[in-house]
């Protein structure tokens, strides 16, 4: 189980690095899918099979498909890829990298200073999640549904084309 975790974690990190460095949109998306699947595997190793399933279905499945559609609709061809590559000149990486390293260092420092007790890992079944969702978190679920509805309407309105007038 440990090996699975480390392996999938390494894949997740590696594929994510590839996502943010690719010039071609479709390639990046595919790496992102890989990253998400690896994270789903991590979920599984952490005893959250339900979340792992959702990760695969919703994230890697639905959301990424949406991305793929849009990227294809944009028709980002080779020219776009060349331009992307040009935009990614080396010096542009410096600032963000420093920020990211700082962030990581801070979090690592926190982890180091807080001696965590050995985890008590247990599988949390889907049933327990469902009971929690429709019990104490009912209001959050309702809010989430409202959010999705708003996003639906908003996306429709924004992307709606009225005969060439956008």
């Amino acid at each position, binding site marked *: 189980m440990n090996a699975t975790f480390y392996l999938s974690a390494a894949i997740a990190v590696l594929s994510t690095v590839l*996502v943010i460095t690719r010039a071609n949109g479709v390639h990046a*998306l595919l790496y992102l899918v890989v*990253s998400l699947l690896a994270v789903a595997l991590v979920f599984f190793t*952490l005893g959250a099979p339900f*979340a792992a399933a959702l990760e695969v279905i919703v994230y890697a499945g639905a959301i990424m498909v949406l991305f793929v559609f849009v990227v294809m609709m944009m028709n980002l061809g080779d020219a776009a890829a060349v331009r992307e590559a040009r935009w990614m000149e080396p010096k542009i990486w410096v600032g*963000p990298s420093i920020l990211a390293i700082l962030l990581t260092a801070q979090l690592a420092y926190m*982890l180091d200073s807080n001696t965590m007790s*050995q985890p008590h890992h247990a599988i949390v079944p889907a049933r327990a999640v469902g009971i929690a969702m429709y019990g104490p978190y009912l209001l959050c679920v309702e809010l989430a549904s409202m*959010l999705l509805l708003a996003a639906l309407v908003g996306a429709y309105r924004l992307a709606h084309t009225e005969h060439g007038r956008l």
Partner: protein
Amino acid sequence: MTTIPLDHVLILPVLLFALGVIGVLVRRNLVFILMSIEIMLNAAGLMFIIAGARWGQPDGQVMFLLVLTLAAAEVSVGLALIIRIRHRLTTLDSDAADLLQG
């Protein structure tokens, strides 16, 4: 179940999140920025799952679900905006969309 030290587990979302940040700041293409945001959201979700697993409670997964819905909503609206911007500015360069300049 597993005996992975919590420190090791927690490093993963941190790294993912940091990579997302780099992505947002480095890429000029709006689609990539959106993808990087997805990475960051996913990292946050992972953090919830880890916390939930640590205490053996379902709350972490509930939160992950909420993050998931948030990501879905965000992506749909974000992509719609990207389409719109692409039509309006004929580019996906985020630096070109600087109409808010003071």
